[in-house]
């Protein structure tokens, strides 16, 4: 082999310390072998997640919102359905106040007694109720709807999907045809139809359901009936691909039972997909609820939800545009934060994106 940049023929022309040509000890060699620090998949993912500024922003926003909806009702001396009173008398001047305004009666009362009343941070609504506390309760309701709906979807979807995927064969075929049918039902239509029916049916019954609000219950039922199919398909697909892996075969060969195999070996490998889908389900549920409120099928008055608040505000938008602003902004913030968090989780948990 010929080469232009000829290496030196005589290395001895270099000044080399002969002692360096002694054999290196194992200890010295090991020091050279710089290994990258070992870490688990979970640790790695979390590290990646916390490096993502958008994910951190989302977590901060969500935590802040949750703290507010937990503690605000303890601090604010008004109730969500309570019509403002001054000195025990209904305050008729307190309708549609702007943020941080006091009504005439309240101002008079404060001037007379010197007692400082708690400000109406977002103003009041058309029925003289404190708007801030209504938004807080609305957020509670919307988040609760989103959260529980996602849990329902999670449970049904994972159970159905894992049974179908693991069983395979004829059972899988039948189960998946059912999913196909439900999948092609126009979801909004079914939701509306079911909500109408459930509203009527459940209204007649009393007890817990009535207290919860019939529409809340119907939203959950609708989610339980319809939205799990996406999750079920996803889980089944994951299980089908994981099922053929050698470690599952190994577990089978030593006589592990199907339930144990699914729970211990297969589901952990599908976990990232499940977590992400659940995180993204919450915004979708919040949207659905606000949509139902829009067409008058949302939570029952006087209980507010962000959707129903925004919808009420929509009607009076010309006079009081700020009333739409607060609930709408809260919805956007929650949904945005959850979407960004879901994206962040996907990036962090996707092993394909490593390196």
């Amino acid at each position: 082999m010929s080469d232009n940049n000829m290496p030196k023929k005589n290395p001895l022309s270099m000044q080399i310390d002969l002692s360096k040509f002694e054999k290196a000890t194992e200890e010295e060699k090991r020091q050279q072998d710089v290994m990258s620090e070992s870490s688990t998949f979970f640790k790695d993912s979390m590290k990646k997640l916390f490096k993502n500024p958008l994910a951190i922003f989302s977590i901060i926003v969500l935590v802040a919102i949750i703290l507010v909806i937990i503690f605000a009702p303890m601090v604010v001396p008004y109730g969500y359905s309570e019509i403002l009173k001054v000195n025990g008398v209904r305050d008729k001047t307190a309708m549609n106040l702007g943020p941080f305004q006091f009504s005439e009666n309240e101002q008079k009362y404060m001037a007379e007694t010197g007692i400082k009343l708690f400000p109406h941070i977002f103003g009041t609504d058309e029925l003289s109720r404190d708007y801030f506390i209504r938004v807080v309760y609305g957020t509670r309701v919307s988040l609760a709807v989103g959260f529980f709906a996602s849990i329902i979807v999670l449970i049904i979807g994972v159970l159905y999907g894992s049974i179908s995927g693991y069983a395979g064969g004829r059972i899988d075929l039948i189960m998946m045809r059912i999913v196909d049918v439900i999948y092609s039902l126009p979801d909004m239509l079914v939701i509306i139809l079911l909500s109408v029916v459930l509203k009527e049916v459940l209204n007649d019954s009393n007890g817990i359901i009535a207290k919860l609000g019939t529409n809340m219950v119907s939203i959950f039922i609708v989610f339980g009936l319809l939205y799990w199919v996406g999750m079920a398909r996803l889980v089944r697909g994951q299980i089908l691909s994981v099922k053929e892996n050698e470690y599952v075969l190994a577990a089978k060969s030593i006589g592990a039972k199907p339930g144990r195999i699914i729970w211990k070996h297969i589901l952990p490998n599908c976990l990232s997909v499940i977590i992400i889908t659940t995180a993204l389900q919450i915004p979708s549920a919040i949207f659905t609820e606000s949509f139902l409120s829009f067409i008058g099928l949302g939570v029952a008055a006087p209980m507010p939800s962000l959707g129903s608040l925004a919808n009420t505000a929509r009607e009076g938008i010309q006079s009081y545009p700020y009333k739409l602003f607060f609930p709408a902004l809260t919805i956007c913030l929650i949904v945005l934060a959850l979407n960004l968090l879901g994206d962040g989780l996907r990036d962090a948990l996707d092993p394909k994106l490593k390196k």
Partner: protein
Amino acid sequence: MSEKLLEVKNLHTSFFTDSGEVKAVNGVSFSLESGKILGIVGESGSGKSVTAYSIMQILAGTGKVVEGEILYKGENILNYSKQQMKNFRGKKCSIIFQDPMTSLNPTFTIGNQLMEAILLHTDRNKEEAKARAAEMLTLVGVNEPEKRLKQYPHELSGGMRQRVMIAMALACEPDILIADEPTTALDVTIQAQILELMKDLQKQLGMAIIMVTHDLGVIASMCDEVIVMYGGRVCERGTADAIFYHSSHEYTKGLIRSIPSTQNMKQKLIPIAGTPINLLNMPKGCAFCSRCDNAMKICLEQIPEEIWVGEDHLASCWMNVKKQMEQEKVGASK
């Protein structure tokens, strides 16, 4: 002496990742003469594929040649314009990849993908390009070429697809063919067929081949010259005979010791201990020192220089320096 077709001088290629700069290729030099087969051998992460991709300028995302020259017939292709580079790729120099399963576009027919390069680099019209594509398929031993042209990649077996890849690479009669682990993803029997095919085609068409592989068997059966790489650096380079019979780098010796053969059937194979180095944490001295049985203190501290250890044979190992010093000592004392 035959002309130098391709010369790589002191090539440095790095990937800029979130965790820092990864020096995948670290000062590689070699030259390729026309009509010769050059083997680049090394384990995964040794920088052999990155060297090949650097020549083609098809490095992924964050990869970049940071130093060095790549001379094609005396011209530095790193200074080529986009247009010149497009002409270089596929026409002057082609590449076939490791995994024929994923290297063909699943949504286009074989014919479409074969004709694409022909239409791009030659004056042929569509009909002529199609004829040429069929001709190439026949050349690489694909039966029923007319029918194959209309098929999609997923309808072909792995061996078939690799033949299609070869046909595609050779369709414009390039001077250089880079084969990046062309047989790794194939069955053993198919591997032999593909290698045989490449040897035949090389004789027929006379192009030079750069064979990138981790398989010393492939190197032994095909290559005229060999480069052994470890940790992005060249350990040893020379004629295939010199590398196999007079290995002068501890890593090459280790590699050869670990090949099973009919001669050492009854003996236990001796693997190279340890794991490949982490390119993010390169040692100060020789890249191989932590796994080397004969590592010396100097190996840990200083990168060995490349020195001549025989005619047409260069190696970068302090052991050779030591040997030469000892010889000179003996010579001096006489």
